[in-house]
């Protein structure tokens, strides 16, 4: 009697899940999802609690609102690929028409993103790329060569051309970070930087407290450290705070990629005399229009495709490496001269 009842328990469990379901064999080539009402465009950023990511989402939302769609914003609470994989699956189930993702790992998302593309969803990456097989096109904020080079040029000028420097990065797998670091290392091989030595690449994981402790560790382990390059808005703000608190302004130079709103005080005080960035809202905005162009069929992600990106004008798809990308522009320097006007913009 008990066994019968227990079997009934198990059956009720499975039946309650499948009740009213529509079954589809996995791998069924589905048609482009037809959404009832507004089409849903989704963006997944690296993690929450990061003003840079939030501005990207803002820009994306603005673009999608302009074209008349509905935006879904997703951000994991930890900058991990596992969380993003789960979000991709949830978005596939919601039948979105396009996914724009800033990846926490270039390769780990491939199986999930491939499933999305098989379901008819247009997948692009922005800011931090996924590998070329996982996406149709990548929206890049600026040429990584330009970014890496300008970082080294800036820090070299600040420390007077010689000394030890360290790099304080975000997470160790982030595609964008690694491409910039590679360029920085290559730039350092140039004979004019022969007196500058890169002693360490530390990872702050784009988390404030970890970035702070990594900075402190750098200062302790390398007492002769002359400069820190922090190509992450969280890292450069954290390092600036540590240098200010420890009174190391002028002794250890700092530059990196920083939001003018966060770095304004430090630029004025001289802890970091210059940082670079681009407008993250524009990155999101461009990604929004790119997604729309793919969904409407204006472009397919192949090199040479052209489309109009709202107020940013016309953009062309170019080949980079084994994939295609859309460039936003060049990095912009924020220094004491212009920080006042930019710190309220973003």
């Amino acid at each position, binding site marked *: 009697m008990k066994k019968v009842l227990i079997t009934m328990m198990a059956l009720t469990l499975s039946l*309650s*899940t499948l009740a009213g379901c529509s079954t589809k064999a996995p791998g069924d080539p589905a048609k482009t999802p037809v959404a009832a009402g507004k089409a849903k465009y989704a963006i997944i950023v690296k993690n929450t609690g990061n003003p840079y990511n939030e501005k990207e989402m803002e820009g994306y939302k603005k673009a999608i609102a302009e074209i008349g769609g509905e935006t879904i914003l997703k951000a994991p*609470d930890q900058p*991990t690929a*596992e969380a993003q*994989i789960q979000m991709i*699956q949830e978005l596939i*189930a919601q039948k979105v028409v396009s996914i724009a993702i800033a990846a926490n790992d270039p390769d780990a998302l491939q*199986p999930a993103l491939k499933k999305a593309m098989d379901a008819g969803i247009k997948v692009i990456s922005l800011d931090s790329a996924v590998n070329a097989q996982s996406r149709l096109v990548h929206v890049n904020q600026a040429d990584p060569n330009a970014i890496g080079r300008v970082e080294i040029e800036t820090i070299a000028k600040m420390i007077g051309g010689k000394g030890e420097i360290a790099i304080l990065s975000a997470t160790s797998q982030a595609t964008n970070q690694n491409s910039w670091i590679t360029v920085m290392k290559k730039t350092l091989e140039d004979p004019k930087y022969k007196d500058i030595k890169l002693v360490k690449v530390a990872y702050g994981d784009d988390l404030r407290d970890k970035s702070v402790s990594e900075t402190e560790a750098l200062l302790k382990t390398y007492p002769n450290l002359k400069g820190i390059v922090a190509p992450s808005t969280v890292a450069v703000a954290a390092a600036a705070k540590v240098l200010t608190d420890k009174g190391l302004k002028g002794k250890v130079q700092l530059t990196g990629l920083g939001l003018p709103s966060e770095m304004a005080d430090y630029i004025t005080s001289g802890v970091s005399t210059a940082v670079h960035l681009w407008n993250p809202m524009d990155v999101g905005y461009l990604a929004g229009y790119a997604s729309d162009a793919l969904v409407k069929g204006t472009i397919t992600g192949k090199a040479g495709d052209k489309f109009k990106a709202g107020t940013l004008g016309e953009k062309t798809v170019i080949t980079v490496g084994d994939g295609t990308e859309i460039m936003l522009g060049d990095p912009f320097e924020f220094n004491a001269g212009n920080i006042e006007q930019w710190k309220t913009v973003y």
Partner: protein
Amino acid sequence: MSMKQRIIIDKRQTTLKSFFFQWEWLLILIFIIMTLVNGALTPFYLNANNLIGATMTFLDKAFIVLPMAFVIILADIDISVASTVALSSVIMAVLYNSGMPMGLAMIVCLLVGTLCGFINGILVVKFKELSSIIITLATMIIFRGIAYIILKDQASGKFPEWFNFLGWGYVGVVPLILIVFIICAVIFTFILTKTAFGRRVYAIGSNPVASRFTGIKVDKIKVIVFTLTGLMAGITALFLTSRMGSTRPNIATGYELDIITMVVLGGISTAGGKGRIYGAIIAVFLIGFLKYGLGLFNVPAQVLLIIIGLLLIIAVMIPNLKLKKIKLRR
């Protein structure tokens, strides 16, 4: 004087009412309500394809829920499981990338997990004055620390194509991971409910001192249970690494909380000796689908944590509420 015959019942009388007032039925009820609510609120939920696909997200940690049920019935706890997963995965990746064949690396992954569990077991048994939470707290830090020493902050991966099949593959319409989980669930349920070993686990949980005096080899059983937990952590490492395609020292962070939540929600009391493994299995799917459903509504990640936390508190509170008329049988 006539001797009144006293009948001492050897089994509790099972009336239909007492059967349905079981913890597990409550869980099923919540599950059904959740399914109906989710289905009503969004048309995307009730899609068999998606739901089965969604199981692949949470089933990797479900493997550890099975032996963890044993551990908690023993009135112990093991919070080092996530670190064991990370360490096993990291060692497997590093060995594979140094030339070891993948099959062998996978076996090493299981061995590392088993060894970590064995170490936990020996320590718990040898240092009886220290409770298992303290010991596994220490091993939690040590195991993950070793993983960090091996890989620093880097990732390691580039596994062969076929390795993906573990975490993503289907056998027909059913994901491979679901099949393996069902097999493991059946095995563990059998051990707990139908073998003497299982009964002894309950006995030790109810009253360790009396068990020892009855001749039950308490130490040996504890070591076996912790070792099993380590082995299942190794299996989780295999599936998780396969789903990710690469590994880092910080994977599976926070897994132990999810796993213990699933066990406790399943009706297994942390005081030991009570609870049934069916509850834990139902709780796995309950929490898994709840997270998935909330994700479909794009609930922010932080709110999700609050909801799961509340669920856990309620799960612990309800059995302790002395409701006069209704006593939930566990």
